């Protein structure tokens, strides 16, 4: 045993060590961080609600909204991204990320869309209908479950074992009937997590390794078509006694690093940039080249749901906020609720603009996710300060630490 497991572990330790040495020696490539929006991207899908009631008697509806991020608006001969199409579908039993979200059953198109396809609505009754549809395709269903079942999903694993055992007796019809009923039982007992897929077809400029546009011989930007596939899980299920459905998290963002532990955002609008808690007019935020602007996220305690772990212990759900900007660079890409031991949670982040580049109208997007597929987002803009109000290059020290020019 030891020679095998130890070997595996030793290999992991050795490779990690070697990798760490390589990192320390500066042998890693210098890529742009993932939160810099250099091209059109989908950065989230917000489901409302993230947990949909789903019982034999009642099936709820979910509204799905695409969260997009755009690069800086084009200037001169440059061309902005053009969205050519948005399509939605849902997979009842997905094999998950490890299998590139292969759907083990035929996907169901989602046709109830609005806002040019950016918003889709899906009725849980269609899932119930879909389940009935596979009643006559139990072999396909069981094969799909076999490929996609979670290792901890004992209900469906037992179902497969029973099905295999039943087939040994040769009564296919009975086995299929029992298996389908067993599957329905698992679905209504433990819920179902269908995965929604949204395919966005976008036409935009081809970028080189430095994320700069590629031009043809005529000096025109080379265009390309990309198909972006995004996957979003929504929980459909009945609630157990005492269980509350998961909600999308609420949060705000403020200017500056002032502690806001006891602050209720809507009661203290000063410094508040944006919030998911209600309508709020964004204050003007101006920036000069080279300036650093400090923001701070705030998360109201009651917006965090409680989750029960495998050990039966109830804790606050884990959440993480991703910070995106299409100009300048955020110091942190993500901030999460987990901290190292002895380290306080720090929800501040700094947006720094390059000293050698002019500031342009910068779109900032914050996306907050929780542990159970909850998602919410905020968006605001940073504008360029007029040139006469910006200090000369080399005198920017006074503008650091969030000072307003």
């Amino acid at each position: 045993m030891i020679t095998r497991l130890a070997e595996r572990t030793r290999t992991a330790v050795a490779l990690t060590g070697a990798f760490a040495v390589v990192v320390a020696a500066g042998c890693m490539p210098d890529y742009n961080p993932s939160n810099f929006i250099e091209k059109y991207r989908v950065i989230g899908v917000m489901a409302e609600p993230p947990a949909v009631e789903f019982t034999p008697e009642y099936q709820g509806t979910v509204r799905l909204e695409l969260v997009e991020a755009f690069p800086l608006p084009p200037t001169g001969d440059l061309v902005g991204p053009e969205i050519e199409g948005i399509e939605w579908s849902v997979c009842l039993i997905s094999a998950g990320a490890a299998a590139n979200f292969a759907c083990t059953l035929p996907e169901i198109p989602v046709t109830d869309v609005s806002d040019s396809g950016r918003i889709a609505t899906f009725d849980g009754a269609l899932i119930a209908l879909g389940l009935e549809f596979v009643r006559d395709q139990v072999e396909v269903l069981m094969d799909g479950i076999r490929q996609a079942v979670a290792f901890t999903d004992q209900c469906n694993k037992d179902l497969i074992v029973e099905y295999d055992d039943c087939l040994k007796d040769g009564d296919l019809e009975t086995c299929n009937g029992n298996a389908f009923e067993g599957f329905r039982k698992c679905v209504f007992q433990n819920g179902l997590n269908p995965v929604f897929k949204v395919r966005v077809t976008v036409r935009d400029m081809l970028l080189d390794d430095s994320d700069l546009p590629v031009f043809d011989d005529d000096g025109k930007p080379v265009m390309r078509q990309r198909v972006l596939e995004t996957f979003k899980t929504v929980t459909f299920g009945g609630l157990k006694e005492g269980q509350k459905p998961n909600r999308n998290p609420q949060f705000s963002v403020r200017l500056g690093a002032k502690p806001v532990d006891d602050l209720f955002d809507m009661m203290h609008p000063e410094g508040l940039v944006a919030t998911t808690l209600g309508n709020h007019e964004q204050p003007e935020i101006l920036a000069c080249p080279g300036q650093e602007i400090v923001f701070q996220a705030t998360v109201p305690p009651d917006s965090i749901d409680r989750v029960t772990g495998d050990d039966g212990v109830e804790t606050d759900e884990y959440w993480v906020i991703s910070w995106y900007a299409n100009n300048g660079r955020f110091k942190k890409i993500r901030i999460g609720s987990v901290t190292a031991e002895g380290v306080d949670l720090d929800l501040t982040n700094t947006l720094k603009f390059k000293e050698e580049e002019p500031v342009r109208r910068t779109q900032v997007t914050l996306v907050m996710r929780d542990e159970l597929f909850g998602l919410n987002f905020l968006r605001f803009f940073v504008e360029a300060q007029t040139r006469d109000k910006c200090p000369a290059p080399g005198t920017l020290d006074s503008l650091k630490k969030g000072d307003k020019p």
Partner: protein
Amino acid sequence: MKRLALASFGALVLALAPMSAISMTTADAPTVEGAVGGDPVDEGPAVEGPADEGPIEEGPVQEGPVQEGPADKDDGEGPVQEGSADDGSDDEGPVDEGPVEEGAQGPAADAGDVLQEVTPPELLEFVQAVLPPELDIPDGQYVVVLTLTIDENGAVTEVSAADPPRPELVAPAIEAAKKFRFKPATYQDKAVLVQVQYEYQFEVRQKIREVVRVFLTLERGTRDPISEVSGFIEETGATFTSIDGRMEISNLQPGRYTLYIPAGEFDEIRQEFKVGADDRAKPPESPIYLKRAYGAVSNQTIIRAPREARFAAKQSLSAGELVSFPGSAGDVLKVVENLPGIARSSFGVGQLVVYGSPPNDTKVFINQMPFVLLYHFAGLYSVINSDFIEAIDFVPAGFDASYGGAVGGIVNVKLKDEPLKAWHGSIDVNLLHAGIIVGGPYKKDSGDIQIAFRRSYYDAILKSINAFGDGRILTSAPAYYDYQVRLQHRFSGGHKLTFFINGSDDRGELINEENDVNPTFVGSVSGALWGHALQATWNWEPRAGLSNELKVQGLITQAGFDVFGQVKMKVRDHPVTIKETLTVQAHSKVVVRAGLNFDVDPYSFLLKGPQMGLDGENMTPYESSEVLELSGDGVMATISPWVSVEYKPVERLTLVPSIRADLNVGTWKAWSIDPRLSMTVDAIKDKLSFRAAGGLYSQPPQSFTLIEGYGNPDIDPENGTHALVGFQYNPIDRLTLDFNGFFKYFWNRAQVSDDATVRYDNGGIGRAWGFDVLLRMNPSERIPLTGWIAYTFVKSELYDFGLARWRPSDFQQNHNLNIAISYKLPRNWTIGGRFRLTSGYPYTKYESYQYDADNDTYVGVRAPGINAQELPLFHQLDIRVDKEWVFKAWRLGLYLEVQNVYFHKNPEGVIYNYDYSKMAYLTGLPILPVLGIKGSF
């Protein structure tokens, strides 16, 4: 070659006594046989023989050889060849009068006409036999009848002996006869190969010696006793030879003398001394330190071990001079990576990829017992001090049934078992670690002990330079230590008991206070791997041809890592291994080896993480994976009986059929039976041999695949079959050319299953084929150069059921060229270099991505064809310079090794940006200098 047997032919007889038959074979002439007789012709020289221990003692006396040249064809009496005579008038020490050699008699009356035309060989150079000092036989004359094969150049190529009355004299006679030089036999004026019989005669008588002075002949710097060094007294001409490091000067009258030891393996030296009147009663002792001459080949050279048919493809490296092998950083075990058949591992972490098999397929042993691990953290150094190692045996394929549990190859680290005759030690300090070793006899000729300890300190260096950046705190890492204790005791009755205790500890912890990319990954990253082993070996050899070896090993080990609490593994186990091996010479042509191995390994584990992939599997981002956490315990228990029969139906052919069963009777239950067969053919003795080996091999799949609750406890053993053919050719002394061609086929390979309920199954199929060539040069006195050129070609493939075709495995490295040389310069300088040129490992390209909106991660979509791409060529030059200052009783060594001298950024992997739209190579270290100092006594 035509062969013709005739009645008799006497012209070639070189024996004193009447001989019954002589045979002669020529390359293009007939073979003749005949009966002859003869008488002594001339008395050869009498020379001084070996001295005995003790001041006054009677020892064996070998009369000088009475040598007779081949008889003249016409009169039947060979030419007289006189050796230099030494009457030993003032020396009453042993006298070797050597053999008496006779000229051959004339042709027998019925010799054929053809044979009459064959001119017999003529002895040109006679060599005195050297008798062992411990020889204890009664006075008298003894004859050893030899059969000599004399080639066209007059060299003796083969010598065999008939059963003599005193077997102790056979080896000295054969050794001496091998050095004879003849004028070759001729047939029709053309030199031909012939075979003749020859009598080597010894006359032994006891003489009295009076020792007056003892010089301890010691090697300068090591104080190792030197034997068989001869010197003479300038004033008298008397010659003396050291035995076991003692040169006893005898039979000198009181006065002043000078002992002169001429240059040879050691530099010349003159030592004046005085003999007093009372010195006969108690001869004084004093040391003489002899400095090894430049170019002299020590006994620590790289050698190729004799082929063992049961390990037909074995490569054997002896440790000695490998310590200064370039690129090894002074570590003998690191040299293994340069052998043909072993691929270069990524980042040089020491993974043993043998003939394209994953590292898991190759087992490492220490003295044939399972080993915890071979290398420390990041593969920088091995866990055994090189001073303990005698040799490293590497068998890439086709090993016999004495080894199991590996479908790839085996590496066995052989520890030194020669008794330590003096206390020695050394301190080694370099930029990464410091170590000490000390050892010596605690009881002369029966017991010795050796202890070593080593500790790294590059954790302090990394801390001081803040190597991992702000916000990352190294708390205890990375650091390692290791220790070894070897104790062996010899008892009467052929018993020997050996204990080897060793342990190593690698651990490290990095605190990551914040993580700007993945905030989940904050806190502690730690890894620890330690083990402590006690190995006991009992050897018993009750008589020649029967031996028994019992090995018992107990281990306590723990291996684990914890990545921010998100991915962690901790395994603790206490394996006990018992290995019993009985070797019986059942017949003059049959050796039977049989054994029973028993491994029992109680273990406990804790595991948290996503599903681990196997060869070619997609890397799913952690956040998008199902993470399991479980703990448990169990017992792995294996009973493995085996038998291996070595059969030599004819002199030059050895066949080894063997069979092994592995019965897993613990928590995991499975069994396998593996028959195997290997063979060697000595086509030209000591020059050219062929080999072939093959059979079935089995091993448990990787442990995580069979853990209940994580993998599939019903998974079966992995199987493989080997087929290997090869040859070894020694065109000249110290130059060896080796070739192996191999094919391996694997089935029942564990793989990630399409059935998610079991996760892993035995559906994998693989194959590996290719060849390797090794040209190796060992040092000689004229050319003190050690080096080799090794080239390996490997195709290692797995079957891709999705695309219905073979695809490269993760460990395919098509081409691997390794050139290494080490050259000794005067004044104890050594320079060396190693150049490596290898293909890159394969990888799978990502062509697009999918966005996992639940976890804000990008999941790569791979291009068709797993491992269809290949990293660019790897090439690297390492150099090493050693300088040693040799003092009387100790040595001081300084070495500088620079790896990757010309700063080449070798790609070791690929790394993508966040959405897989950009790819760059992850390169290894640009340069790594290691400076060290080592003092030894």
